[in-house]
């Protein structure tokens, strides 16, 4: 014991002695030195409460907004404006019978929702939700914790979270969940690469993977501007990562019933549900932190009264606003876009997102190099030249791409009349096409008679 104490004391002295030479940007800027362990515990509980309440709200919000988009009211009976609808649904789930299929692998079947539910919360512990505030007499940042590799932690946890899905799909002992689980895994790992690569540009600008450091380095300029392409890629991948429409191929109802959670009921199903929504908050919070300045006030407001709105609990307000605008975006997507076909989805990820993001990383590296005087002392000129060259290359590539597509896009000949069963399975007609009745065709080939014109007309009006 005494050895440990002396070691700790020695470590403290050593750290203080060399501290001035170590102003490294790798380390978190958030100062947790005045945060006792019980305050960390309280903050951890608050994070859970924050996420659970937000989940309850966002499900109601989603149903109301989609209702509006579809010109219907949405849930409006339980509580004021239907606010308690989600709570009622959650309670209902707790009262439902919990079934484990006979074929299932019991242990894994139970572990899967636990992983999906519990892992979802971890990432939020490194999200900075505000500046230093006063809590129970201590000065502590509105952030549970931070490490020099905080963003890697988020990516790692996202990787572990996939286990929940694949284990659920495999352990159910049923075909639909197995397919859903596999699809989902392929999807998540494909988009995780592009997500990780899109963040590299942010690290290039911030020089750190600590979230508090990243927020601090966006004081003058939010990274959405210099890393705009990364932001776009991230937004696409975050929808893919969370299995949300238009990328919810893992649970496409038309194809796979419920996907990986087909066999789940009661609280276990609720855990998957909870995990999905918490994940939405996590990726949105990460987007806020990485690209939208985190908890910092928008540029105009930040200047008012010498940065008054950038201090204390105000930060939480800006953070929540940014977070919820992403949630609205998620809901908006769901309300307006159809599901993507699986092969198109994978093609987009592997043949567009990944290579283009890699090239983007190289471009940003060169821009950073110019700013850091790799190409000579006059950084401004070098930056302008590098940006110009990159833009020219991008324009030329886009032009070539366009030309290729125009050349390829020769409109295919469309016959007036199609046989719906020509390919072996029914195909609906395109607009302006007539449908040939298969029975007529058979009749014609048998008896050599011509088709009845009035029947084709009928078909046309029906189609």
């Amino acid at each position, binding site marked *: 014991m005494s050895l440990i104490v002396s070691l*700790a004391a020695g470590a403290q002295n050593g*750290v203080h002695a060399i501290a001035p030479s170590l102003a490294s*940007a790798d380390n978190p800027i958030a100062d947790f030195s005045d945060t006792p362990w019980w305050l960390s515990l309280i903050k*951890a509980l608050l994070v859970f409460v924050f996420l659970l309440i937000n989940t309850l709200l966002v499900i109601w919000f989603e149903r109301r907004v989609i209702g509006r988009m579809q010109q219907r009211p949405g849930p409006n009976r339980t509580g004021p404006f239907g606010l308690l609808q989600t709570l009622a649904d959650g309670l209902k789930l*707790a009262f439902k*019978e919990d079934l484990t299929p006979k074929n299932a692998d019991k242990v894994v079947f139970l572990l899967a929702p636990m992983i999906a539910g519990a892992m979802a*919360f*971890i990432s939020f512990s490194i999200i900075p939700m505000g500046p230093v505030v006063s809590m129970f007499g201590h000065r502590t940042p509105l952030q549970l914790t931070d490490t020099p590799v905080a963003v890697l932690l988020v990516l790692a946890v996202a990787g572990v979270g996939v286990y929940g899905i694949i284990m659920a799909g495999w352990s159910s002992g049923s075909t639909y969940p197995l397919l859903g689980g596999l699809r989902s895994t392929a999807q998540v790992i494909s988009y995780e690469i592009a997500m990780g690569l899109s963040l590299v540009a942010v690290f290039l600008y911030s020089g750190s993977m600590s979230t508090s450091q990243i927020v601090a380095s966006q004081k003058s300029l939010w990274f959405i501007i210099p890393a705009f392409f990364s932001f776009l890629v991230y937004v696409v991948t975050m929808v893919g990562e969370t299995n949300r429409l238009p990328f919810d191929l893992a649970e496409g109802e038309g194809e796979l019933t419920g996907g990986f959670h087909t066999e789940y009921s009661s609280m276990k199903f609720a855990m998957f549900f909870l995990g999905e929504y918490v994940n939405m908050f996590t990726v949105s919070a990460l987007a806020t932190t990485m690209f939208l300045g985190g908890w910092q006030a928008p540029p105009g407001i930040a200047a008012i009264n010498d940065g008054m709105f950038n201090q204390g609990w105000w930060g939480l307000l800006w953070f929540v606003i940014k977070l919820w605008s992403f949630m609205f975006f998620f809901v908006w997507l769901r309300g307006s876009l159809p599901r993507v076909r699986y092969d198109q989805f994978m093609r987009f990820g592997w043949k567009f997102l*990944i290579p283009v993001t890699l090239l983007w990383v190289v471009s940003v590296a060169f821009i950073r190099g110019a700013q850091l005087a790799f190409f000579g002392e006059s950084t401004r000129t070098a930056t302008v030249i590098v940006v110009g060259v990159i833009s020219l290359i991008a324009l030329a590539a886009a032009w070539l791409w366009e030309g290729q597509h125009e050349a390829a896009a020769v409109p295919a000949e469309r016959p007036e009349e199609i046989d719906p069963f020509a390919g072996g399975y029914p195909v609906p007609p395109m607009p302006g096409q007539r449908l040939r009745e298969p029975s007529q065709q058979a009749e014609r080939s048998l008896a050599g008679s011509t088709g009845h014109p009035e029947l084709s007309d009928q078909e046309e009006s029906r189609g």
Partner: protein
Amino acid sequence: MSACAEPDLREETDLGLVRLTRVSPYLTVGGVVLTGVFLFVAGMGARRLLAPYAPTAMKLTTYECGVDPVGDGWAQTNVRYFLYAFLYVVFAVDAVYLFPWATVIRSADLGMASLAEMGIFIGVLLVGLAHAARRGLLRWV
């Protein structure tokens, strides 16, 4: 200072952190994991207390759109999922190398050479991806 915090102090200094924290960040993360597991256990407990349990053979079969399932659900999997797993490993490892590079490029003495080297590194990966694409490995049929 409480006894449990001291080993964490050493861990902190090993990582080279300047500002001492009371609780190791990784310990905090571990605490969050435990709380999440506790949440799950609590949910399961609540369900046990509240929900009925009356299984029948019919209820315990797996779902196959109302038809009795044939065989067990563990079908052989198409190998194309496997290919994506391979490619994923390649690119995940690549990203692992990019992250530390991105955070140290601020030191100006790295200079042009590091940019060129990283360009080549990424170029090699792109060549591999192009080969895979041309060979039809990325075509999902």
